[in-house]
């Protein structure tokens, strides 16, 4: 146990290192730009104390090349990291709070609601929205995602109370079907925008800017802080609502808080990146297979591994069929599924 206790920070530190390496790799790939090896140097020389007057790192990158790194590649890498971390954290939290390995915030309608919101804006306002000062698609998608989960929660809670989390999951299934049906109906009557909506649904990071990063940050930071604070409660909830209550945990309140926090983060990243599937479901399980099932470890690792996973998945997404892009959602499934199966298998053999 002593070793195990020490191993927890080690794994977190290790995963942060991996995240940094992956982020550098993300910044190094792409068309145009300077030689790949100059890029980590260019980033390092701008950290106070490492560049001019400090350690004297000099990358020899021109202003134009730097702007490719900083204004085009970095926002994309950072956004991919934030989106991956938030989806994965949301998935781990939902799995904990519902004691169900197959749920993530998408299950209660965060994705379907966001998709419906985007569809409605794209069909009703159409390309006129490009003249608007602010693109309304992310905002409406965000509100619809939150609204759908709220309705699911109210419906589920009014029938099953907080005693049975399965009622909530079933209410989620019903709400997802309903929202998807409405979306299909709208699309079927507006077949000219199907392609545009479809592109949104598949998820994209190509248009990422620092603006997007700033837009999602408040929600993501809030959601992450709340979920990190509740990781011990998630461990107690593993013995069930009854026993957790008998141990003095306010189960209903903890569940509501965690669901609200995870949904807020997920809705925010869905709004800027579309529906990137698979991350929330599988990254937490990868983490469990690598570091054990205690939420004390799973929650922080879900953040770092989720971020690294999506940055990594985005690299083939933009290089494989360059200059066209492979949708990120497709890549996450392509990389994630086999990796997950291998991990599952090695774990079973070693047990």
């Amino acid at each position: 146990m002593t070793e195990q206790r020490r191993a927890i920070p080690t794994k977190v530190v290790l995963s942060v290192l991996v995240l940094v390496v992956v982020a550098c790799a993300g910044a190094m790939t792409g068309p145009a730009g300077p030689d790949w090896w100059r890029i980590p140097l260019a980033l390092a020389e701008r950290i106070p104390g490492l560049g001019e007057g400090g350690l004297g790192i000099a990358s020899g990158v021109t202003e134009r090349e730097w702007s490719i790194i900083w204004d085009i590649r970095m926002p994309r890498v950072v956004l991919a990291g934030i989106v991956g971390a938030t989806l994965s954290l949301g998935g781990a939290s939902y799995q904990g709070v519902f004691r169900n390995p197959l749920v993530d915030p998408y299950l209660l309608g965060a994705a379907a609601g966001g998709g419906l919101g985007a569809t409605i804006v794209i069909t009703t306002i159409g390309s006129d929205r490009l003249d608007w000062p602010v693109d309304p698609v992310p905002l409406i998608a965000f509100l619809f995602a939150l609204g759908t989960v709220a309705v699911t929660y109210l419906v589920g809670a009014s029938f099953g109370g907080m005693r049975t989390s399965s009622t909530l999951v079933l209410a989620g299934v019903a709400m997802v079907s309903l929202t998807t049906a409405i979306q299909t109906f709208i699309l079927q009557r507006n077949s000219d925008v199907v392609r545009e909506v479809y592109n949104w649904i598949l998820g994209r990071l190509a248009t990422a800017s620092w603006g997007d990063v700033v837009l999602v940050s408040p929600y993501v930071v809030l959601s992450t802080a709340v979920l990190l604070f509740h990781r011990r409660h998630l461990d107690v909830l593993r013995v069930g609502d009854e026993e957790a209550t008998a141990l003095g945990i306010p189960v209903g309140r903890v569940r509501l808080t965690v669901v609200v926090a995870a949904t807020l983060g997920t809705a925010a990243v869905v709004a800027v990146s579309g529906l990137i599937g698979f991350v929330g479901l599988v990254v937490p399980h990868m983490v469990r297979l690598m570091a054990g099932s205690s939420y004390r470890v799973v929650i922080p690792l879900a953040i770092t591994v989720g971020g690294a996973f999506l940055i990594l998945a985005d690299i083939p997404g933009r290089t494989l069929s360059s200059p066209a892009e492979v949708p990120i959602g497709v890549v996450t499934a392509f990389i994630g599924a086999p990796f997950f199966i291998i991990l599952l298998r090695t774990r079973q053999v070693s047990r």
Partner: protein
Amino acid sequence: MSSVEFQHLNVEYGRRTVVRDFSMVVPAGSWLGLIGPNGAGKSTLLRSVAGLVKYSGDVIVDGSSLSLRSRSRRASLVAYVPQEPILPDEMTGREYVLLGRTPHIGYFGHPTKNDRAMVDDVIGRLGLDGIATRELGVLSGGERQRLVIARALATEAPILLLDEPTSALDIGHQQQAFELVERLRREHGLTVISAMHDLTLAGMYSDRLALLHEGTVVSHGSVEDVLSAETLAEFYGVRVTVHREADGTVVVIPRREQL
């Protein structure tokens, strides 16, 4: 050492009254056995003490009402072992016992060195070192039961509620579990209230018995008083012989219907 006093406890599920006007004093450090046929209200009674069901009336611990205490204070007074505890397959024995410290950790707090030392101590005293590092999913029924008791002990609660704690165990492990609880009761002065199926075991370990029938106490007192063939025939609807051993043990033997 803490005594428990029930004052006119009533529990209703919808319109059905599950426990009716239950009043009783359980002296500190004693063992009260709750017996009665299925559905008599034994589990509900325990669940109300643990704060899991709403009730009217009162439960007094050490002179003040349980319902006036905070959630975690209540949890640090009363440890509850349910009939079918949930043991997550991938959790280790030690992590599981550590959950018993929950009532002592603040909302945003984390287990301290003291909490961990306490858990190590409980594990050592119960001889669970061998299984503490293993995952719960690979343990046997008896090992799991001992970890559940260890978790209850880690709460340091003076009152232990056991809901048919051994119904899934074979006779040897049943005895081991009860012997363990009895040892802990004597060492720590725990007050034990347990619902029990096996009448002979109930008679062996309890100081006093309460027989419930449809939510009402129909007989209570010493083991000899409650475990009589007539009473059991009336409320369980069984034909039994009650046999008294020389050492005072009361043995309840079911009889076949005579054809």
